[in-house]
């Protein structure tokens, strides 16, 4: 029974994707969006039913195999489901956001030629993402992992005639492949030490793995668990866009906005966070790996936030915000506050999807203009978009009582409690990040919706609120963005919701530490008024107000005054430059060198054609011996005979 329900959840979007993808020509636009929305709606309703069963009716976690993929050398590789509290929560988040995005797409892609293709892709994505979160083994995890990457590739390059889009999707795929490279090695390590791809077996044998050592370089021994966990985390760094593998995410904004919301904010990019939380029984056993996770996450959280301040493209600002928030989630993982990471993942999925869809609504109204310098004062033209986006922004900066407030505050406190090496740096980054977040978020709000109207007259005349298929998802996402934290912070974070799904060693249990003081959401909110982050956020909003509403002349002057800093930020710390001019160009140069020198000059030139030439030359030389003159031959015979005789005489 349960297995059939879960199969339906996963396969309904796949079936819809196939029908819309292969049959789009016959079923038409309405057919395509109807069938895919139906598929995802079925998944959402059933996922919600599964979550309810586990949460309220105390249903046990489900684990079972669906089919055996391959058996070799005694290793049984299966496709199967593991649905516990962690998975059930992810399933609901994924299918809900996906459903909202499906509806929104009807409006956003209304005039696009690739309408049916787009629906097929996002449904396919939903299937892949569900397979990823529902997996009970590393094989299927990797399947889902790469499959979401594939759909992301297809969707970033959705407008395939744009050079920037097909550059961005190749870049996204390759950078993700660097992550997957590490991920695959981590999986190979698991198989090496456990002889199985199943989570259950890996978790069961984890303590033994942590006892093993591993020689990477001669004379240097590593803890096997640290090697495996760091390799796995490199995968997460690719998918969840952590420094230095973050470079693909801002460029991914070349794709249509609905997928920026669905894939590059709410779901796919959180796969890495989910994966590390799922692997908590492994990560808990390696302090080294946790420390690595913590530092990478902290760096991403703060330094990507800075970039949001200098960007003028509304979608890219939200994208940098996503990077920074993913860093926050990663920090939580490194501090062993996996629950806080997942909790922030959930609230972020709602408010960031909302912010992206809000930005998309602005972009529709502005006729696909994304530069905030040509916006301003949109509040009165787009009231629904304005208010919902504002709610999302407040959730993002952690306005007391909003969903983002609970998740971010819990996370910051957890990091403050952590004693993993690097915790002081991490605590600084996440606290300072609050100020930065508020600054760039309200800079965006003010530049877009307030102040002077900077668009041209033609655009202004045509400004109007988006149709209901666009605004309805905004409203439906705004509701959880505001309230979901209040209702879930206690049960999810502090009342053992993740028990059994997430394992935390007692000495790492920072959330438990905070939980002891936790009573009610109200008290939690009140407590925030006595701590720093709230005031930092307020200061950030105030500064944004000063710079972009009160004294709009100041930013330009600041830019001149702080020219070196601005240059660093404007060039995005030169990551892209290095990737393109050193790594990519270097690989091509090495490839060309190998080809011209190795293959063409040495092997083909010297050995293959060289030996052919040598034979030819030898033949040409010996040819002269065969002159055809009898006296030449007679002379040679005489010489030869006398030499032979001389040799014989000399021997005796």
């Amino acid at each position, binding site marked *: 029974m349960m297995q059939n329900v879960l199969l339906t959840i996963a396969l309904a979007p796949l079936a819809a994707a196939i029908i819309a993808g292969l049959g789009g020509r016959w079923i038409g636009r309405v057919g395509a969006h109807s069938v895919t929305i139906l598929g995802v709606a079925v998944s959402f309703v059933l996922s919600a039913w599964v979550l309810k069963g586990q949460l309220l009716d105390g249903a046990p976690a489900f684990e079972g195999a669906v089919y055996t*993929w*391959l058996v*070799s*050398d*005694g*290793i049984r590789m299966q496709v199967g489901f593991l649905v516990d509290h962690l998975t059930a929560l992810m399933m609901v988040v994924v299918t809900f956001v996906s459903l909202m995005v499906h509806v929104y797409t009807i409006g956003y892609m209304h005039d696009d030629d690739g309408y049916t293709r787009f629906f097929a892709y996002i449904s396919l994505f939903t299937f892949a993402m569900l397979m990823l979160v529902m997996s009970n083994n590393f094989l299927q995890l990797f399947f889902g992992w790469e499959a979401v990457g594939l759909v992301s590739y297809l969707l970033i390059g959705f407008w395939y005639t744009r050079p920037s889009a097909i550059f961005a999707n*190749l870049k996204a795929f390759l950078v993700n*492949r660097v992550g997957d490279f590490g991920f695959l090695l981590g999986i190979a390590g698991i198989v090496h030490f456990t002889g199985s791809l199943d989570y259950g077996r890996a978790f069961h044998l984890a303590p033994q793995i942590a006892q093993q050592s591993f020689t990477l370089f001669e004379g240097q021994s590593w803890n096997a668990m640290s090697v495996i966990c760091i390799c796995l985390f490199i995968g997460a760094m690719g998918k969840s866009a952590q420094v230095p593998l973050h470079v693909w995410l801002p460029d991914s904004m070349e794709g249509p906005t609905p997928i920026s919301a669905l894939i590059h904010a709410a779901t796919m990019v959180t796969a890495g966070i989910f994966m590390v939380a799922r692997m908590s029984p492994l990560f808990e056993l390696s302090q080294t790996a946790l420390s690595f996770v913590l530092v990478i996450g902290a760096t991403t959280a703060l330094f990507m936030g800075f970039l949001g301040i200098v960007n003028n493209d509304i979608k890219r600002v939200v994208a940098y915000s996503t990077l920074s928030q993913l860093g926050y989630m990663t920090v939580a993982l490194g501090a062993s506050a996996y629950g806080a990471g997942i909790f922030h993942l959930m609230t972020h999925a709602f408010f960031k999807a909302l912010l992206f869809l809000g930005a998309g609504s602005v972009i529709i109204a502005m006729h696909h203009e994304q530069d905030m310098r040509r916006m301003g004062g949109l509040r009165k033209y787009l009231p629904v978009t304005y208010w919902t986006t504002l709610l999302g922004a407040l959730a993002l900066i952690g306005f007391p009582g909003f969903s983002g407030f609970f998740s971010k505050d819990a996370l910051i406190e957890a990091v403050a409690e952590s004693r993993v090496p690097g915790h002081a740096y991490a605590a600084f980054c996440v606290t300072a990040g609050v100020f930065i977040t508020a600054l760039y978020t309200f800079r965006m709000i003010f530049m877009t919706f307030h102040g002077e109207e900077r668009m041209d007259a033609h655009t202004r005349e045509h400004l109007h609120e988006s149709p209901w298929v666009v605004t309805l998802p905004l409203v439906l996402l705004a509701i959880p963005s505001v309230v979901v934290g209040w209702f879930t912070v206690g049960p999810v974070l502090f009342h053992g919701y993740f028990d059994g799904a997430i394992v935390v060693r007692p000495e790492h249990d920072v959330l438990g530490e905070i939980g002891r003081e936790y009573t009610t959401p109200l008290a939690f909110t009140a407590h925030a008024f006595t701590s720093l982050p709230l005031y930092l956020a307020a200061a950030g909003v105030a500064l944004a107000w000063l710079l972009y509403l009160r004294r709009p002349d100041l930013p330009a002057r600041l830019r001149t005054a702080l020219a070196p800093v601005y240059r660093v930020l404007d060039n995005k710390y030169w990551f892209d430059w290095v990737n393109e001019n050193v790594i990519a160009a270097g690989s091509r140069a090495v*490839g060309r060198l*190998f080809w011209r020198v190795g293959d063409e000059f040495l092997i083909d030139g010297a050995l293959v054609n060289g030996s052919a030439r040598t034979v030819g030359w030898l033949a040409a030389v010996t040819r002269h011996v065969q002159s055809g003159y009898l006296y030449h031959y007679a002379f040679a015979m005489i010489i030869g005979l006398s030499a032979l005789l001389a040799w014989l005489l000399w021997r005796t």
Partner: protein
Amino acid sequence: MHSSLLSLLTWLPILGGVAVLLVGDARASVARWLALAVALAALAASVPLYLGFDASSAALQFVERMPWIPSLRSDYYLGIDGISLPLILLTTLSTVLVVIAGWTVIEKRPAQYFAAFLIMEGLMIGVFSAADALLFYVFWEAMLIPMFLIIGIWGGARRIYATIKFFLYTFLGSVFMLVALVYMYLKTGDYSLAALYRLPLSLTEQVLIFLAFFAAFAVKVPMVPVHTWLPDAHVEAPTGGSVILAAIMLKMGGYGFLRFSLPITPDAAHALDWLVIGLSLVAVVYIGLIALVQQDMKKLIAYSSIAHMGFVTLGCFVGYEIAAATGGYGGATLALSGAMVQMISHGLVSGALFLCVGVLYDRLHTRDIGAYGGVINTMPVFGAFMVLFAMANAGLPGTSGFVGEFLVILASFKANFWFAFLAAMTLILGAAYTLWLVKRVVFGAVANDGVASLKDLNGREFLVLGVLAVAVLALGVYPKPLTDVMEPTLRHVVQLMSVSKL
């Protein structure tokens, strides 16, 4: 079990090819239909081979044995096991597709063209089913002739250079193999493979024999540094030639390692495994980088083939290093499984990619990447296929391209972290050269009038690519039927390779 199925599979295409030849180029249409009928009959005949195969046994099946050259005690001895069967199925399938793909494209001497492919099909099936070393050698060398002609007659501008290079390269390698076979025959007085497996050999003998085999098989695979014939051969070969070359002929090398090198010279293979593993990893990285900078689509896919075949040779030999690292051969079968799946998958995927290039070449008569761009605007169906096969070539899970690489990487990790590390570089390099190709050819705005004039796939092309697409996806989603057939045989090979002959 007595049956004449293998003889039928071997001789039906050969005799059918002769018949097509007799029909002649003047009656091209009759020749084509006859060729298709023969190819389909062979494909149909290979179905009972699969259905009747006992997958639980490692023993030779469908055995046929009768005296062939009594004075040399060489028999006409055919039989297949779990290694041969998938390769034979790949051969019969590929030939049908190649015949369909060449249907109207080949205007010059069509009957001879189809006949060459049919005869080659029979010879290749002979190679995969021969259980007598001399018989094997005859098929092995005979197989060169049709391919020599295919490249030399229906090839591109530099076809003569390419085909002679191909012939000399492979022939030079094979001669050493003959010497080794004769040497062993002089010791056993018997050419049957089973006798050679039992033959005790000193380490010096084994090393020399191993190197002789190595010369033959490494060229066929091809391994670095004896790979340079392949890009030239592929570039000049007609589409069908490229497909058969990539899909089947390259597999002869891997097949030879499994059939000859590992069981006959286990100690030498053990002693020299570093050489093979080293060259395999070089193939993945060095060749991967070279593939990145190719401007000719066929050359790019040819280099990609070499890099992919690196996984086959790595998988074949990494078992010894697993034993050295862990003290047991657990994981060696996994590696061999990976190598075999990689061979089958590569046959499908690179065959399909060469067909894709052929589709474009037939329309615009150039293979230069720079001459394309934005093909998907005018050929959306073709574009979808091309992206699918490119993803399979990049080893995307869910396609067959993933399975073999995955298994080999898992096994290599057991031997040495750095083997797995270098092998896994293919994740990045493979994606880079394949998807960059896709970006430049398929995506983008319409680049020029040539691209603007392109017509999408016709029914014939759609059929061929569609069959391959289904096979690539089926193997990726459910590889168990394939690996189940091979598993007992591969376990047997591991047993043979792990027992010392000293």
